């Protein structure tokens, strides 16, 4: 079976700095996989490469067999990849429902002219868009905030809303960049359940970056570890916890002499 996501020898250089070095991996459809590594090890750069913010200096990225390396971010989103951000980046000034509807933009047909002239096709589409947006919010328990300013939501709900907005683009692959960052243990616990709920209900593949090991070890059957932009280990939580190179990367080299 073709893997959903395949990265082959991907390298990204910024001038003299190699942020990601010869990184390869595969994600199967339906998987929930974590990407971990010390600070500055290139995790977010990998997400930026997958979503088209950066173009790989070398190597290729495939989504379900199609080469997506070098494509524009909106095109890649259209092909089925959506993401959230490390620091929440919701659209202020647009209410919660509108934030979600922006994600549906891609799937809309009607143009400005038909909207200004209020053609029947536009009215129908707008209604549908609002309805499906509401349904999405309902299924994620956010419907009661629909007309609120996103920044007025509790922190944990803002994280969920970012996931909802990403889901609105109908992704096959969802990238979560530190979804539990800044959360209390109990909030993180709730988020873990939420992520698993999303994985099942939306029939997705999820690739997530996380620092909170409780989250990673608790829900991800497979973990990939990188350090200095290079792949160093891969396996289930137990294997990772006992891997020497991982321990070395996180705690510094032990003195073997």
């Amino acid at each position: 079976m073709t893997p959903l996501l395949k990265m082959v020898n991907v390298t990204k250089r910024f001038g003299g700095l190699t942020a990601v070095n010869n990184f390869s991996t595969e994600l199967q459809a339906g998987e929930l996989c974590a990407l971990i590594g010390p600070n500055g090890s290139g995790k977010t750069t990998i997400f930026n490469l997958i979503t088209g913010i950066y173009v790989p200096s070398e190597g290729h990225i495939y989504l379900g067999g199609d080469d997506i390396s070098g494509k524009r971010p909106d095109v890649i989103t259209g092909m089925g990849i959506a993401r959230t951000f490390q620091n929440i980046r919701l659209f202020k000034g647009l209410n919660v429902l509108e934030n979600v509807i922006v994600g549906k933009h891609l799937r809309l047909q009607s143009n400005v002219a038909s909207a200004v002239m209020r053609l029947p096709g536009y009215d129908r589409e707008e209604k549908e868009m609002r309805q499906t947006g509401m349904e999405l919010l309902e299924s994620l328990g956010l419907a009661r905030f629909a007309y609120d300013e996103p920044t007025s939501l509790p922190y944990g709900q803002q994280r969920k809303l970012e996931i909802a907005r990403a889901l609105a683009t109908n992704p096959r692959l969802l990238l979560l960049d530190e979804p539990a960052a800044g959360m209390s243990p109990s909030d993180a616990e709730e988020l873990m359940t939420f992520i698993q709920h999303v994985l099942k209900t939306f029939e997705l593949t999820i690739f997530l970056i996380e620092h909170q090991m409780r989250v990673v070890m608790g829900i991800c059957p497979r973990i990939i570890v990188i350090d200095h932009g290079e792949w160093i280990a891969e396996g289930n939580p137990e294997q990772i916890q006992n891997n020497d190179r991982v321990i070395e990367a996180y705690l510094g080299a032990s003195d073997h002499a």
Partner: protein
Amino acid sequence: MNFEAFLQNLSNGISLGSLYALIAIGYTMVYGILRLINFAHGDLVMLGSYVAFYGVAMFMLPWWLAFPLAILVTAGVGIVIERSAYKPLRDFPRINLFTAAVAVSFLLENLGIVIFGGRPKAFERPAFMDQMLNLGGVSIVSYTPIIIITALVLFGLLLLVIYRTKAGMAMRALSKDIEATGLMGVNTDKIIMFAFMLGSALAAAGGILWAIKFPQINPLMGVMPGLKAFIAAVLGGIGNVGGAMIGGFLLGIVEIMIVAFFPELSGYRDAFAYAILILLLLFRPTGIMGEVQAEKV
């Protein structure tokens, strides 16, 4: 001053203000999205009025064909400017973009002198815009209400586009976070182009109405309205479309009223606009509707 004279001045101020507002919207939209003060914007005002002028005077088109055509042509030029001068510089430091805007402004002004000639031309109003109306003792020329109504209709259409269409929603999202908007599947290049198109179209409409109000056009005519509209945009809170409208009306009315109440100060008319700008920057730098924005990192 009696009441009739006051009303006369007020209508004059509102019509001038609606012109400032029309032009200010283009500044504010582009700033909101790209954090760029598009200094060439004022020159699109000039371009719009010249295309309308030539449409009527040279190609003998009726005004109702020439004016919309001029708006379309100017919108097209706005898109060309964005594609050729601004888009290639988008990922560079803002100062590069800013310098490019100044360069485009000089280019348009001097091209205007070369192509249209430096001598002012007389813009001919359609006859029905040139009639004296007597509304309850107040006599005004018919172009005054026509300017105001046209501007209000255009504002209505613009707000409809911004708040009721998907492109408008994408524009609002874009002004908060370009990258995140792109990652939600919005083609940001297309939306930025669309914003330039809208702004340029409104500038052209402003230019044509300006020429109707002050029927003498020259290649540098866009400079002053451009500057004043920029002040109006800052006054209203740059980046905020509603603010630009309010700022425009306010500036127009204040300008006219100062001259009306203190005729001996009429020579200082433009100075007042700048004085307002300086005071505003001192006491309320974010403008009337502006919000304090965290610096983007």
